[in-house]
């Protein structure tokens, strides 16, 4: 690859006490590329995103954004890097003391130089993009359903038009039709805004649709990555088992009767 990758992760390790979660992750995401990370529940996908965002400090390894090392950045430098990111949290993480539109416009309002009226209009436009009516704008997060919260979180993540967007399970908890709307929206972000997207999902339909490239996380490492079209003939038994959702195979769920 001649161009510098947008995100470049090398040898990333993270443990919680004795529990090793990430054990040397290597992953590149190119400019305006959409990469989907798949993997079983509890394999550390969310932890991976939080390490990139600096919410968790990795034990070892390097993370470069546009060639700049970001592990260990603090204060103003960290804030400057974070301005490039938008993040949809798995649990939406909406500010429950603010209304829906204030949540969506949060990044715009705190960046300064935008009037509240202007910010509100942009927020309502973003809400419309995720299929929410303008009436929702003045509700509080506690008054929303789970799927609506997710969509508000999504609107907030993309409201500031970030260069890089992380989607942590964007379609879980949505009905199939709304899930497809969200998939389209993510594709549109990448195609029209030129955003770089790193998503996590268990939903293979969604993964096939939004991904240029798919990577599978297992045992703290990326064990397979390749173009989304190759996922069905990856030749990797772990990937095969995962995408077909079989209980039998090399991945043993630790279930005890």
């Amino acid at each position, binding site marked *: 690859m001649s161009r510098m990758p947008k995100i470049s992760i090398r040898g990333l390790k993270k443990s919680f006490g004795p529990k090793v979660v990430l054990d040397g992750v290597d992953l590149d995401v190119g400019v305006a590329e959409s990469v989907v990370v798949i993997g079983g529940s509890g394999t550390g996908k969310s932890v991976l995103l939080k390490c990139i965002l600096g919410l968790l400090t990795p034990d070892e390894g390097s993370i470069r954004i546009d060639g700049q090392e970001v592990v260990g950045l603090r204060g103003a430098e960290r*804030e400057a890097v974070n*301005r490039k990111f938008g993040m949809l949290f798995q649990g939406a*993480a909406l*500010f*429950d003391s603010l209304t829906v539109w204030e949540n969506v416009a*949060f990044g715009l309002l705190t960046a300064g130089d935008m009037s509240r009226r202007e910010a509100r209009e942009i927020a309502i436009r973003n809400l419309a993009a995720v299929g929410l009516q303008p009436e929702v704008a003045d509700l509080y997060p506690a008054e929303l359903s789970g799927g609506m919260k997710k969509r508000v979180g999504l609107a907030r993540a993309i409201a500031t038009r970030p260069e890089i967007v992380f989607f942590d399970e964007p379609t879980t908890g949505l009905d199939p039709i709304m899930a497809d709307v969200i998939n389209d929206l993510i594709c549109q972000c990448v195609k029209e805004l030129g955003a770089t997207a790193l998503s996590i999902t268990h939903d293979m339909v969604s993964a096939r649709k939004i991904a240029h490239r798919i990577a599978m996380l297992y045992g703290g490492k990326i064990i397979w990555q390749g173009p989304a079209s190759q996922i069905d003939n990856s030749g990797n038994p772990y990937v095969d088992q995962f995408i077909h959702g079989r209980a039998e195979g090399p991945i043993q769920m630790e279930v005890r009767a």
Partner: protein
Amino acid sequence: MNFLATIGRIFIAFLEVNGRIALFAGEAVSHCVRPPWYPKMIVRQMIDIGYFSLPVVGLTALFTGMVLALQSYTGFARFSAESAVATVVVLSMTRELGPVIAGLMVAGRIGASMAAEIGTMRVTEQIDALTTLSTNPFKYLVAPRLIAGLTMLPLLVLVADIIGVFGGYLVGVYKLNFNPAAYLKQTVDYLELMDVVSGLVKAAAFGFLVSLMGCFHGYYSQGGAQGVGRATTNAVVSASILILIFNYAITEIFFATR
């Protein structure tokens, strides 16, 4: 041997917590004095601490002033020094009971709600979301609460002082049959500016401590509803203990300089 190890472990844990609180306080204060500020957040906290605590603080101050008058009267009557009642009430209120009672009430009311609110934001990843939206949680959440605590408690205590003295007056005049004018004269005659000022300095310190404990325990809470509950308890208990310790320390300082 095991026993000693336990003591050692507790002692080290104690020092560790102190260190963490000191670092937290340092970071928080550094954000209080550097822009950007969030005036809306500061005003909201000021209203919450200053205005909405008035009923609780006023009521406790009133009854404290009343009981002070009654108790000191029964005590002083034994050596016929009843005329000192007004002085005792005003000095105790301004120097000691005003700040301490307001501090403890605010610790229960505000410290707890701060810990619960920030703790919930922590466990539901709202603090993480703040950071990813390039907003420093210290600036957005902690600094406004510290500033509001530091500035509002002195005002609350000033009100508490007045209400407390009024409570003493009520009991003195209507129950103990003091002459109203004489009671008021007694009240102001022996009152020095320093008495009030030392009380307000205490109040500012207590306000800071309550906010600091609320924010600290909330910020580091973990593990769902139970963790938030623990943070709330810890915030109130530690703030109350610190108020009593600092109350002595500040009294000692003012005592030494006069």
